């Protein structure tokens, strides 16, 4: 593979990861925490209404997980394309 097509393929995979992770990012915060809050509030877990829990707790936990998943995926991708250092 030439240098140029190598970097193109790397970039394409990277963009795919980013789009998938940002979709989840949107879903837990703007989706579960805001748009679908009222519907989710019908469900209760312990003392928490689910929509309220996503808005004030759950979305933040997911954010942290998303970044660490991205770190792992990208470290693997760097190795696969020889950009690791």
């Amino acid at each position, binding site marked *: 593979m030439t240098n140029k097509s190598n970097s193109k393929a*790397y970039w394409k995979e990277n963009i795919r990861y980013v789009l998938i992770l940002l979709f989840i990012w949107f879903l837990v915060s*703007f989706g579960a925490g805001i748009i679908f809050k009222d519907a989710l509030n019908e469900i209760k877990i312990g003392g928490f209404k689910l929509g309220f829990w996503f808005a004030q707790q759950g979305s*933040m936990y997911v954010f*942290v997980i998303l970044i660490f998943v991205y770190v792992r995926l*990208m470290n693997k991708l760097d190795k696969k394309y020889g950009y690791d*250092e």
Partner: protein
Amino acid sequence: MMNSLLIAEQVSVQNWTYILVGLTFTLYIGIAIWSRAGSTKEFYVAGGGVSPLANGMATAADWMSAASFISMAGIISFAGYDGAVYLMGWTGGYVLLALLLAPYLRKFGKFTVPDFIGDRYYSNTARTVGVFCALLVSFTYVAGQMRGVGLVFSRFLEVDINTGVIIGMLIVLFYAVLGGMKGITYTQVAQYCVLIFAFMVPVIFISIQMTGNPIPQLGFGGELADGSGTYLLDKLDGLSTDLGFAEYTEGSKPLIDVFAITLALMVGTAGLPHVIVRFFTVKRVKDARKSAGIALLLIVILYTTAPAVSVFARTNMIETVSNQPYANVPEWFKKWETTKLITFTDKNNDGLIQYVADKSKNELVVDRDIMVLANPEIAQLPNWVIALVAAGALAAALSTAAGLLLVISASVSHDLIKKMINPKISEKGELVAARLSAVVAVCVAGYFGINPPGFVAATVALAFGLAAASFFPAIILGIFYKRMNKEGAIAGMVVGITAMLLYMIKYKLGWFDEVVPDKSEWWFGISPEGFGTVAMLLNFIVSITIMKFTKAPPKEVQDIVEKIRIPSGAGEAVNH
């Protein structure tokens, strides 16, 4: 052991505060002396070899300001569900930072954000717009921090607010001017430890008291410890509606505004220069990604605890004062009354405290900052815990102030002097210029801390809108859209920040009309705090439209974009 415990009981809150604040300040100064900066690279980016863990801790302290530490839990306490805009907004931005900005800006390997704007858009006009935006955002933000330092000093150590501001200025001056980014980084590491300890200890105590669960994140969704089997949140919802407020877990802002504010805060967070520069300090691109993750994890510890504080404090407060005789109020109530943060006017002269939503009948006004500052006293915790809050609040305010001052001084000495006015300036000369601009910046910040113009408090919240409207689109397009050119980016930034400023002046400050216009006049029902989202979209639209009609960037610039997309070789880019 018994003896020392007995002595510990007798030491007053004020003496404990002197001891804890004195100890932490000595620590910060010690670190500053140990980590003096010897070169511009050390001054601007701490030499570029900070470990991901240290950078994550420093970023967390840099990020969490007096507002996060003192005010946020209080705001949520009064806003209920609506407070989620701050929780999600101020954490969700880190996902954008880690996925869309930090790795590429690190690879680009310059010292400042205007540096990126100026080089990527091959134009000193773009650089100047960048410097203007960086200074505007950072100055509005730093004035609030110095004010916070002054307030903590005056409330806990009973010195004058102005004396407090000056003491804070001297401390920041010492380690920011001496150590630059290197000194700031390692003091911020220490400050993170101080502030998170100070925030968590009282809450854990209170969570055990109220719910029997030592983990506040779980406790506030649990049952009350009194054995009634009622959930704490259900009880608070009930108390709130009884007094005429909205249900705590429901909130009252319209959906579109909640959406817009959350997005504006997220995007603004990702566009704040003092946060972005932290990622220039690590060695490799992969370290930049990792330290964003560590930073968010450390921030989320405080941010998931804050809503628990809000619920505990609000329930405690309503139960302690609502419909109680004024003559019997606890000592903390009287103490905070003297600072005017709590005011009681007995409108119907029945000697009882009526705390209700109806403004004409409500007799109690409580400042939101009380919720964190007085929380340990309300829960009757030991004196040293109460004193800890002061040390933590100071750590939060000082660490953020230092980070902002560095952005201001680097914008002046590097972007203005070195890159535009006098490119031939020597390394030594630039370092002197950087230190001098830091001194000037501290003095200006201190001046605004002592004489706060009325609009500072309003504009601090809007600094995010300004960052969202200017930097975020320019940086994103610069990385992900190779064809984006200088004409598009400059027009976008100018239109974005102008729209934000005008909306803010009209609807927040009310300078165009005699009074601040009513909510009903807001565009699409979006508040000034949420308008950053609209201004950001405007920036994107204008940038892309103008770009379509102007010529593509030169080949060298397109090659730079190709290069920053590849993570390896970040080290070499720094030597320019």
